[in-house]
């Protein structure tokens, strides 16, 4: 027992190590107020992606469409390649509206997951709570809908947004092949359950 207790404490301490610390970041005083996600921020653009979804052992594809309609206002639509709508959501600030969902997919739990994911993808300005640095990489602690997210920024490019709970990654949003404020390749990876969305710009 005498030995067990300290080792138990060590495990506890390691597992409680914060997300920034775990990734080699140290806290700095942030001169910035907000971190920006520019990837769906241009009202003049139609953001159209070929999507591949791996969900609970099944794979399917489609066309993923995002349109910014006005400040804090986005439309997010998913269709089959042949054009049939699977879902059609509107985001206006904190308001969320379902314009259409295929009856077979009209499940509250699924809609909530998608809603949360797309809210993260389309939120343009995240208020910074804390800033961390690791060499030239910056890490910003932010929150969306009272959940904790870390944004990874390297050379002024937002590369990852990670939802973290109790120091563990829950959902990762990875942005790559970035050209002219368009992320040509986006991945949304859930760690809790088998759901992965891969988007390639068309």
């Amino acid at each position, binding site marked *: 027992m005498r030995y067990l207790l300290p080792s138990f404490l060590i495990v506890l301490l390691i597992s409680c190590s914060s997300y920034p610390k775990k990734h080699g970041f140290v806290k700095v005083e942030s001169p910035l107020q907000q971190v920006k996600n520019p990837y769906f921020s241009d009202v003049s653009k*139609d953001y159209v992606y070929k999507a591949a979804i791996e969900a609970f052992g099944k*794979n*399917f594809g489609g066309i993923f469409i995002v349109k910014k309609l006005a400040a804090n206002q986005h439309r997010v639509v998913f269709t089959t390649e042949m*054009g049939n709508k699977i879902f059609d959501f509107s985001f206006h600030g904190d308001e969320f509206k379902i314009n259409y969902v295929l009856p077979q997919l009209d499940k509250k739990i699924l809609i909530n997951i998608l809603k949360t994911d797309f809210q993260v993808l389309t939120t343009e300005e995240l208020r910074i709570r804390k800033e961390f640095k690791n060499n030239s990489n910056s890490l910003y602690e932010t929150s969306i809908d009272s959940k904790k997210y870390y944004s990874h920024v390297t050379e002024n490019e937002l590369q990852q947004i990670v939802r973290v709970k109790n120091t563990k990654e829950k959902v990762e949003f990875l942005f790559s092949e970035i050209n002219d404020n368009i992320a040509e390749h986006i991945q949304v990876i859930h760690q809790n359950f088998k759901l992965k969305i891969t988007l390639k710009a068309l």
Partner: protein
Amino acid sequence: MLLMVTTTYAQTELTAAEATAMKAKVKALSEQTETITADFVQYKHLDFLSNDIKSEGKLAFKAPNWVKWEYVKPFAYAVLFKNETLFINDDGNKSDMDMGSNSIFKQLNQLITASIKGDMFDAEEFDVTYFKNDKGYIVHFKPKNDQFATFIKTFEITFNDLGEVIAVKMLEPSEDYTQIIFSNRKTNQKLSDAVFTP
């Protein structure tokens, strides 16, 4: 596209006798049709977008009901309707789905086959109305099934004077639509079964 929209408005409903003659013409052509190949351009219109989403591909049909839609631009994706199964090849990732148990897929398949051959006037699942314009004929199919009607409000097939399908439009209840325009249509050329291998 603008032209297509304009012509759609300049349509008048056929009389019963005209509709009967038109159906007979399409039916006769359809009965002689063993194979069809064509190119297509698809426009997905979503009202909130600045531009329609355009994709292009090739279509192959072999009687009685093998259909392959193959998108080549801007992505590679093919769907093959063969017997009771829907085969998908999504850029190399293959999957299939049994349509036998799914009435929506069955109706969709029926619509797709009809979009190519044109002959579906007797389908009990739809209310059918006939129109004419300067390009040929437009036939509207309205699903009677409520569940189907939640995703397709009307299905419109445009025929040329010969009775060949030249365009298809699927209108959603929201008024958003998918329009497919065919070109380079070739009928009754020899088409190997290998084309329809999943």
